Each structure stands twice: as structure tokens, then as C-alpha cells.
């Protein structure tokens, strides 16, 4: 099993969700986050206070998939998030040891579905 964390542009969330839907990835968690990459952020000015290279608003998408579905899921996220511009984001793939469905007590791949 793999745990996938993607950091994407806020306005690409709908496309990423739709692409994951196509690949039948259902276990999705989304959060509002702040972040920046190589380009740093955009400077912000508040009267005399200049905030250089501040953090930018991003969306974090987290999905858990079985080993068979990893590349479909990663590809779906990339397909949905790509604009070709700086700041499109990153996808990280992590090894995942275990998964428990709280309601039934099922574990492993069957708990993912």
C-alpha cells in the first residue's frame, strides 16, 4: 500500500478530484495549506512592513491506494494539476504499513476500498 501526498494549486482541485474519480480512487483527504518552492512566494506589502517571499496558498491532497493503483493515482493527480506553469506542485509517494477501517475493524487492502 502507498500513501500519496500531493501539493497543488488551489484552483486545480476540481480537476484533480475529477481525475481521481475516473481512476476510482475514493479515499481522499483535502486540506488548505501554505507553502512555497524554489521560486519563493510573492512579496506582500503592509504599510512599512514588507513580507519578502511569503508563503503561498496551496492545497494538499492525500490519498491511500493499493500497490496496483499507485501510478494510476499519481498520473491522475498530475493530469489534473498540470498547467505547465511554475508552482504546479509536487506529488510524494510514501510506503504505507497498515490501514484500519474503524467501523468494521478490517485491515490491509480491503480496508482501503
Amino acid at each position: 500500500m502507498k500513501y500519496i501526498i500531493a501539493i497543488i494549486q488551489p484552483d486545480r482541485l476540481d480537476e484533480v478530484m475529477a481525475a481521481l474519480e475516473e481512476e476510482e480512487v475514493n479515499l481522499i483527504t483535502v486540506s488548505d495549506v501554505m507553502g512555497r518552492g524554489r521560486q519563493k512566494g510573492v512579496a506582500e506589502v503592509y504599510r512599512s512592513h514588507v513580507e519578502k517571499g511569503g508563503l503561498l496558498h496551496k492545497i494538499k491532497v492525500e490519498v491511500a491506494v493499493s500497490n496496483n493503483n499507485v501510478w494510476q493515482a499519481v498520473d491522475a493527480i498530475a493530469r489534473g494539476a498540470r498547467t505547465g506553469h511554475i508552482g504546479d506542485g509536487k506529488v510524494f509517494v510514501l510506503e504505507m504499513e497498515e490501514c484500519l477501517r474503524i467501523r468494521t475493524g478490517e485491515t490491509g487492502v480491503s480496508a482501503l476500498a
Partner: protein
Amino acid sequence: MAEIDTGDTAWMIVSTALVMLMTPGLAFFYGGLVRRKNVLSIMMQCFVLLGVMSIQWVFFGYSLAFGPDHGGFIGDFSWAALIGVGAEPNADYAATIPHTLFMVFQMMFAVLTPALIIGAFAERMKFSAFVLFSVLWATIVYDPVAHWVWGVGGWLRDLGALDFAGGTVVHINAGMAALAAALVLGKRKGYPDTSPPHNLPFAILGAALLWFGWFGFNAGSALGANGLSVSAFVATQLGAAAAAVAWAAVEWIKGRRPTALGTISGAVAGLVAVTPAAGFVTPLGALGIGALAGLVCYLAVVVVKGRLGYDDSLDAFGVHGIGGMLGALLTGFWATTVINPAGADGVFHGNGKLLLWQFVALVVCAAYSFILSYGLLKLVDKVVGLRVSEENEGIGLDLTQHSESAYTLVG
């Protein structure tokens, strides 16, 4: 018995309520500009002044400011607890409205003025020290200066300096106290690398409420519903408008973006500067005062403050002090007896003397407020300590001074 005019009375009741709204408006203006861990402390400080200052005013503040004169310097205690202040008009102040209405109208100014100072010591002053300082400041600084400028027998009133709605009493006074506070308390931990404003829409809401309330502040200072109050109303609108546009335009011309914070800061600076002039200048005069206020306060806040290095956190001195002084001086240029026969002509209308009086009033009030405020802050520091501990400053005043948080993460 003097005749009560129902139109005047109705307008002054409304004006009083409008000025009351400025203090909560200021709470939002300042509250939006601080970090999220301190927003309640700002709003609490503003709100507490609505309570404490109203009580101070009724028991002795009003009497000290407007009661029978002693040497041109201060009133006495003969109107303490409002003895002799009733429905019958006081012809010396406002001949057509109940004396109690004049008293409560002035009360709202006495509430607002110490609240303006909060901007200078935001995010680091102990609540106990804040309450103690505010009461002492109102009694020893505000009440006498209000007497000098507005009280019957007050020496500046007799000198002939013009201050229509409180540019000197309210804004120069509070602005100089703010400068003293920024110097005595010192910088916030981490300044100038402190975080940006946590909620600009709050600040914009606050500025909007201030602008709205300012119609009561300035047009109400005509103390009646008449041509003069409408003239002041128009001047208020135009002063704010010109300054908002000027500040945003300077930002834009300097190669940066015009900002929302800059635009509302400009509006407030314009309102401050037009305050002493509102009942003495033409609409075009108000536009001129506003435009200069936007420009000068921008320079004070964005360019000069950074170089001098003191932490006037929310620019109480930069906007109210500088804007107030500018307004006092510009009144000496643009005032005209065409608008208000009870006023005087300024430099642009062939009389240079008024400018001298304006300058004297400005310098004396600014010096008095700065020196006394500085002393009072040092005194309060000795008695209860001005600043919260470094640890509590890091945690934030909401939690450490009031055991509350403005925003919950979940729930």
C-alpha cells in the same frame, strides 16, 4: 430658559450614537491589523474604554473639561456626578439642545481618544497597566486639553486657535501619547519581522465604521442641524475621499501595487486631518487638506517610521499625530469666514495670523501630551509594570490577559 430645538436635538442624539460607534469601529480597524493571537486584546481594550471612560466622564471628567474655569487651565469639580447638568440647555456650549445631550456627545470623544493610543502599544501591554494608564491619561491629559480648547475660559479658545471637531484635543493629543508609548514600551519581540495583519477585511470594516461615525464626530460638532453641520459633513466626506485616493496613488506611482490597507489608511488620515477644519473650509479646501494628508501620512508611516526605528505598531502616531498636526496647520491656510462667520480667515483668505495661533496651539498641546504621557507611562511601569513577560508576549495577549482565543481550529 433657553429654547430647545427639536431638530437640533434629534440630530445631536444621532451624532452621539454615531461617535459611539467609532470606538468599536476602531476595535475592528486595529483588531484586523494585529496577529490572530492578540485580536481580542485590542477589541477588549476598546470595549473596556466604553465602560471605564463613560464612568470617569460622568463622575468628574466632564466637570474638569467643561466645568467652571480655573485660570484658563482646567474646570473644577462643581459639575461632578453631573450636579447641575440637566435638560436645560447651557447657552455657552449649545443653546438649543439639552445640556445632558452636550455632555453625552462629548463623552463619546472622551471614550474614543484614549482608544486611539492603543495602536502604539498593541500586542505587548499588560491589561492592568492599560486600564490604569487610560484613566490617568484621560484625567491628567485629555480633560485639561479639552478645557483649553473647548471649555469656557480655556486659554486656547480665547487665543483664537480653531479646532472644529477635535483635531488638537483628540488626534494630536492621542498621537503624541502614542509616540510616547511606542518609545517607553519599546519594540515588540521580533520587530520589524513580526507577522503581517491577520485579517484585513476586519480592518476595512473598521475603517468603514470609522468613516461613518466621523459624520457624527464632525457634522455633530456644529451642535445643531443647520447649514454649518452640512458643510462639515461635506468636508468630512471629501477629506476622506481625497486622502484615500492620494495614498493609493502614491503607492502605485512608487512602483508598487495600490493596496487595500493603504487606501483605508489614507481615508482615516484624511478624516483626521479634516477634523479641525471641517466647519471652517470650503469643499475644495477639504479636498486639498485630504490630498495632503494622504501624501504626508504615507511618508510618515511608510518612509520615515522605518528609518527612525520605533515600533508604533499600528501607526497611531503616524496617522493621528501627524495627520492631526497637518490638519491643524492646514486649517490656518484654508479656513474662511464665508463658510463659518464664527471662525476666521486663513492664509489663503488674506490672514496670516490664524496660522500662528494654530501653530501655538499645536506645539503646546503636542508638548503637553508627550511630556505628561511619557511621565504617566513611567509611573504606571513603576506601579504595575507596563509590558507582559516575554513568554506571554509570545503566547499572545488573548490567552494570557483574557483567557480566551478568537478563533478555534476545530468545532
